[in-house]
């Protein structure tokens, strides 16, 4: 595989993070990021962003929203 430039590497970021793509592609990506500080930072911090978002488990249902849902369902479930 020919040497990848930063643009090609960035286009394959998701492949790398999601564990997709051929072994050859992954090796080429790793080779590039071991030598390119900027791409290394982008790959590392995007992976960390994903972990932070997952650990945070964002967007809980507000209590009032949940309460109104059960009120409406109560009405629907008791329809004849």
């Amino acid at each position, binding site marked *: 595989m020919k040497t990848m430039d930063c*643009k090609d590497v*960035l*286009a394959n*970021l*998701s492949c790398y*993070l*999601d*564990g997709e793509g051929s072994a050859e592609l992954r090796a080429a990506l790793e080779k590039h990021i071991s030598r390119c*500080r*900027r791409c290394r*930072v*982008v790959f*590392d*911090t*995007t*992976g*960390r*962003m*994903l*972990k*932070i*978002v*997952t*650990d*945070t488990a*964002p*967007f*809980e*249902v*507000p209590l009032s*929203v*949940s309460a*109104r*849902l*059960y009120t*409406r*369902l109560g009405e*629907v*479930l*008791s329809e004849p």
Partner: protein
Amino acid sequence: MQKEDQSNQYVPDEDDLLLVERVLAGDRRAFEPLVRKHERRVFRLTLAVLGNIEDAEEAMQDTFVKAFRHLDQFRREARFTTWLTRIAINEAIQKRSKRKNLVPLAEAETATEQFTPKRYESWKSNPEQLYGKQEIHQIVESAIQSLPEIYREAFVLRDIEELSAEEAAEALGITVPALKSRLLRARLMLRETLAEKFEEPATLRTKIVHTAVDAGTAVAMRMMRAAGM
């Protein structure tokens, strides 16, 4: 962060199926535990598509009412979660298309252009620990909410609800390559937004060193010498 492709392995969720059977057999109260289990997911999906709590709430209510009324159309070879996800996304998308001041889909075109990162400083070692639980929720949620809707929905479906690329693309009515391109952009945009909070503040020294390193060895040596390093 490996994700399994779930498209070929619809493992029926036994609890969901048992509850569905009970509702269909006339025990309407059995619908409530189904709602409890899935309400957060449905809320996140409708919020991702619609972008505000009021509309998301209405779409969530309509989703569950529709699911209840059409439960006999649920095909048991699919997971209940998949079926419900489709209803939720459809409800939300329909609601969005009824909005008067609809955002033109021109922004979809930009998805094909590559997003260029602007921030290249590394992050602190455990940045999330610098903030309280509530604060980190707020930081993450407002960053996601600030994404344009086509990127936000791709991100929530894939990276929060963990649908496969195929499932997410189908639910949104777009191709898998389009979904992947939106997801990449969403991830890069979120990284950029969160970097403001999480990155290591660069000293003048590190800035010079990084600029020099990024420019290449020969230039690096010259710049560092000029800076007296």
